[in-house]
């Protein structure tokens, strides 16, 4: 799997290169600003790009703007935004057009290498990976929405994991339950929220986020 990394902090960048190479990814380019990122994407057309939101020269949202451009110009390139803080508005903007091949994670998440690599793989193959922190914000924002209040605590856990972009199998592993139980929870959640059930993980992320108010 081919990756381009855009991260302005050298030690983080080198660490990521090392981690991904070690895990069998092919790092085509590791750059430090948005312009270099754009040319690297054009040159390599990778499966996925890891993009730091705050980069030179303005240290505001260069990464986010580059990510939006990349999603427009190269729809097949997965984009994983990488930041030290979560901003639900950014997630909303990224998901606005289509929730495929997109992720938004806190940098802290690299500490759990397996989860991080899992999320990156998901994004590279057209899935979604939202940080639990982002999902938590969205869920709190949507807690007064019709239906959410009637969910059981377990169903809420499943909903949060769904919103992060995990598959039924991933949810089953995270909660240490069987896939069958997960499917039952998912069906209940969709029924209570009044959403049409959906097989595609992506569509279901979007449906859930729209419902709790984040994906509009």
């Amino acid at each position, binding site marked *: 799997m081919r990756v381009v990394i855009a991260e302005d902090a050298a*030690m*983080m960048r080198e660490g990521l290169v090392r*981690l991904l190479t070690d895990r069998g990814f092919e790092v085509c380019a590791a750059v430090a600003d948005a312009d270099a990122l754009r040319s690297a994407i054009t040159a390599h057309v990778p499966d996925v790009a890891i993009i730091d939101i705050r980069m030179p020269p303005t240290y505001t949202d260069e990464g986010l703007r580059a990510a939006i451009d990349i999603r427009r110009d190269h729809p097949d390139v997965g984009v994983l935004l990488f930041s*030290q803080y979560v901003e639900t508005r950014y997630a909303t903007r990224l998901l606005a057009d289509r929730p495929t091949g997109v992720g938004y994670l806190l*940098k*802290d998440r*690299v*500490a759990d*290498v397996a989860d991080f690599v899992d999320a990156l793989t998901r994004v590279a193959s057209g899935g979604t990976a939202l940080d639990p922190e982002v999902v938590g914000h969205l869920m709190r924002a949507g807690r007064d929405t019709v239906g959410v209040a009637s969910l059981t605590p377990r169903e809420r856990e499943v909903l949060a994991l769904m919103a992060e972009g995990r598959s039924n199998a991933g949810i089953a592993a995270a909660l240490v339950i069987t896939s069958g139980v997960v499917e039952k929870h998912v069906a209940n959640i969709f029924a209570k929220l009044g959403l049409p059930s959906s097989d595609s993980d992506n569509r279901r992320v979007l449906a859930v986020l729209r419902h709790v108010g984040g994906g509009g």
Partner: protein
Amino acid sequence: MTSDNGPMTALRAPFTTLALRRAVFCVLGVVSAAAILSVPAIVPALGVGILWATGVMSSEPAPTVAPAFLVLFPLTIALLVVLAAPIGRAMGAVHRALAARLLDVRVDAPPPRPSKRISAVVSDGPGWRAVGYGLLKVPLAIPEGYGAFCYVFGLANLSYPVWWPLFRNHPPGTRLGPVWALTPFGTIGTRTFAGTFLIAAAGLAMLLVAPWLMRAGTTLDVAAMRQLLGPRRLAQRVRELQVTRARAIDDAAAMMRRLERDLHDGAQIRLATLAMNLGMATEKLGADGPPPDLAQARELVALAHRGAKDALADLRDLVRGIHPPVLDNGLGDALATLATSSAIPVGVSVELPDRPAPAIETIAYFCASELLANAAKHSRATRIGLGVVRSGERLMLTVEDDGVGGANPDGPGLSGLARRIAVVDGRMRVRSPTGGPTRVQIELPTQV
């Protein structure tokens, strides 16, 4: 002094030291009013004097002399406009000193001129207000002068009967000219010893009236001083405080932004990398059994270890930048510590009888820190002197070096410093001629 009322107080009033000091103040007031009136006439008078002394006035016809006055007149106006404010300030300082010395009335000095540029001199508000005081001094001098006149001549008139017998011991029948005495209602004369008692009575009356006249004059004068020679009026003070408050808020916001940036790019990223390295090391060590890749795990742990130490160093620097912990022991310790980290040798002398407010200590510390950094960067000095002394209710911080000078008080560094200390009504004086040496003095209140 008792709180006697009635006639005793009135009788005693002329003979207190206060009355004497008031009389001196009033006399000086008349002198300065006369001086003020003569100021605008100095240049034309000089011109006339020169023309007269060189004999041009009498020998040359009018067309030659007139142009000279055409030049002198605008010159006088221009000089008055440029010099009025500084002269006003100087005169104001003299009057504040006189009031403090003679009347025991303390009027605070207005803030100093912001710069020596001609525009600042001409538009110097406190200077022009002092000029206003000078103009007001002329009518104020009337009651003052009248009071002083009554006082001085009252005393003189009172003494007539004493010296009459000393000088008028002529044989009886000698016809003498009258002796004259001055009173506010004209001169009175007498040829007899008995008549001197009339003069003495007039003197006594004058002496009794004098303190009240002088008091009225000086009271008005002091009121004028407080209005015109003191710090700005309330409205201006409010504006000043609004400006400094806005700056303080901006500074605080900028400080928070800087802090966020430093944490974001420093400790936070180091810790994230450290967590990543430890995460990788954990994988290399495996969940149980013999580690699959011990060598790599060791390397990653070593990397994480180094990262942790770097993060600690980052945080330490950051913490010191927010508030140096040594400052809790007082400014002396903090500045001594600061001096040891300077590349140029710094002699520190801190003489404070007690500790100023913590906020003032912090400001003084950061001023010293910035000035030392400036000196290290620009001065090419071989020695820096750093002194802190207490002067009344103010704290004076002085940083001087033997470097090349040329520090610009309007440059971003020093003007930023001046802006920050203005928040607590601090002041900065910079003397840094080209070629050096440089001396920067910062004056801060000891309490906020």
